[in-house]
C-alpha cells in the first residue's frame, strides 16, 4: 500500500493504518529500536509506544515521508527509553558508538551550539549531504541517522566492513572540513 493511502486510513481513524504502517515500514523501525536499545524486548515495547504516538499525531500531521516520520518517532521513543533505563549512563548500544565516531568531526570543548543557530548548522549539513555522491550520503545517513551497524551497512551495499569504515571516516573528515570552510569553529 502506498504511503498516501496509509495516511488516508489514519485520517479516517481506520486501525488497519497501523498494521499497514508496520508491514511497510516496520523493518526499519525495528532495526532502529534494536540498535539503540540493544534489546529485542525493549525494542518491541518501543515500537508499540511509537505506533501509538503516530496514531495520535496523524491527524493533524500529514507527513511528506511517512517512513521517515515513523522512524523518527521510533528513534526518539527509543532514546527516551534508553535514557530512562540507564538514568544518565550511556547505553552501550549502536547509538553510543555512532556518537563516539562523530567525535572525529567536532571537539568536546567547542562552543558552537552557543555561537550558531542550530537551524544554520542543520542547513549546512543538508547542503553537505546534498553534495555527496548518492552512495556516500546513503551510507552516512544509515550510520548516523538510523544507527545501523557497520556489518549491516556492508551487507546492504555488498561490500566489506572495512570499506564501509573507511568510507564513513572519509565522509566525517569531509564534513569537518566543510563545516570549517563554512566558518564554523569546531
Amino acid at each position: 500500500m502506498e504511503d498516501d493511502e496509509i495516511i488516508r486510513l489514519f485520517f479516517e481513524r481506520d486501525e488497519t493504518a497501523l498494521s499497514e504502517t508496520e508491514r511497510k515500514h516496520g523493518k526499519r523501525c525495528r532495526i532502529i529500536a534494536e540498535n539503540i536499545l540493544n534489546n529485542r524486548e525493549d525494542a518491541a515495547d518501543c515500537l508499540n509506544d511509537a505506533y501509538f504516538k503516530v496514531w495520535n499525531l496523524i491527524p493533524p500531521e500529514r507527513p511528506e515521508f511517512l517512513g521517515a516520520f515513523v522512524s523518527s518517532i521510533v528513534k526518539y521513543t527509543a532514546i527516551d527509553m534508553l535514557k530512562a533505563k540507564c538514568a544518565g549512563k550511556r547505553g552501550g548500544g549502536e547509538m553510543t558508538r555512532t556518537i563516539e565516531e562523530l567525535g572525529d568531526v567536532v571537539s568536546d570543548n567547542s562552543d558552537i551550539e552557543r555561537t550558531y543557530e542550530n537551524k544554520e548548522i542543520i542547513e549546512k549539513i543538508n547542503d553537505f549531504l546534498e553534495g555527496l555522491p548518492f552512495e556516500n550520503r546513503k551510507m552516512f545517513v544509515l550510520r548516523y541517522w538510523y544507527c545501523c551497524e557497520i556489518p549491516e551497512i556492508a551487507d546492504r551495499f555488498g561490500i566489506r566492513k572495512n570499506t564501509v569504515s573507511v568510507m564513513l571516516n572519509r565522509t566525517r573528515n569531509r564534513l569537518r572540513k566543510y563545516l570549517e570552510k563554512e566558518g564554523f569553529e569546531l
Partner: protein
Amino acid sequence: MKSEELFKLIDQIDRRFVEEAWEGDIDSGKAVEIILERRPIHAIKFAAAVAACILVFGAGIFTIANVRTNIMSQSGSAGESISADGSMSESSSESSSINESVHSSNVSGSNENVKIGKETLNYEFDRRGTITSCIVEKKDNLNYAVIYVDETDASEESPILAKIYNVTTDGDIDKSISEKVCITGRGIYEFHYTTLRGAGSRCVLCLEREDESPARILGTWEP
C-alpha cells in the same frame, strides 16, 4: 560542540535524505564496490604500466644479451652493432603491442555502439573525428557513469570533454550541475554527476571540444 550535539543535529536533517537512505536501492554490490574502491582502476592502469615497463626492460636486456651473444659468437662489425639497435626498437614496438592488449582487455566496447545502462543504442558515429567507438555504462541509481573509449582522435593537445547535463521537464538543459571529464585518448573514464530531482527529468551525455562546440549528444536516459 560535543559529538552528542552533532548527533542531535544530524537527527534533524532533511527527511528526504532519511527516506532516500532507506528506500534508495543499490544496483549491485559489485558496482558499488567499484565506486567505493575506484582506485583499482588506477591500480590496474598502474600495474599495466609497470608490467609493460618490466616487459620492455626485460625484452631490452634479452635483446642486448642476444646481441652480445651474437657479437661473441660472430666476428663483430659496425653493421652488426647497428642491427642491434634495430632489434632494440623492434622489441620496443613489441612491448607497445603488449601494452595495447592489456589496455584493450579493459575496453569491452564493440564498434558503432553506445550502451547506456541496459539499453544499447546503435549510433551513427560522426566520421569527421571525435570518438568513433565508445560505450557508456550507466550504473543505475548511483549517479555514476563509466565511459569506455575505444577509438578517438582525442589527445592531450586536443582533448574532448564529456559532460552529463540534466534536462528539465521543460526540455531545457541545465549546464550548471555538470561534471566534466577530459578524454585524452583510449581508456576508461568514470564520473559522478548530479541529477535533478523530480519526475520527468533526464540526463544527457554530451561530448564537445574545449571551446564547447559542437556539442554531440550520444544518448539520454532517465536518472
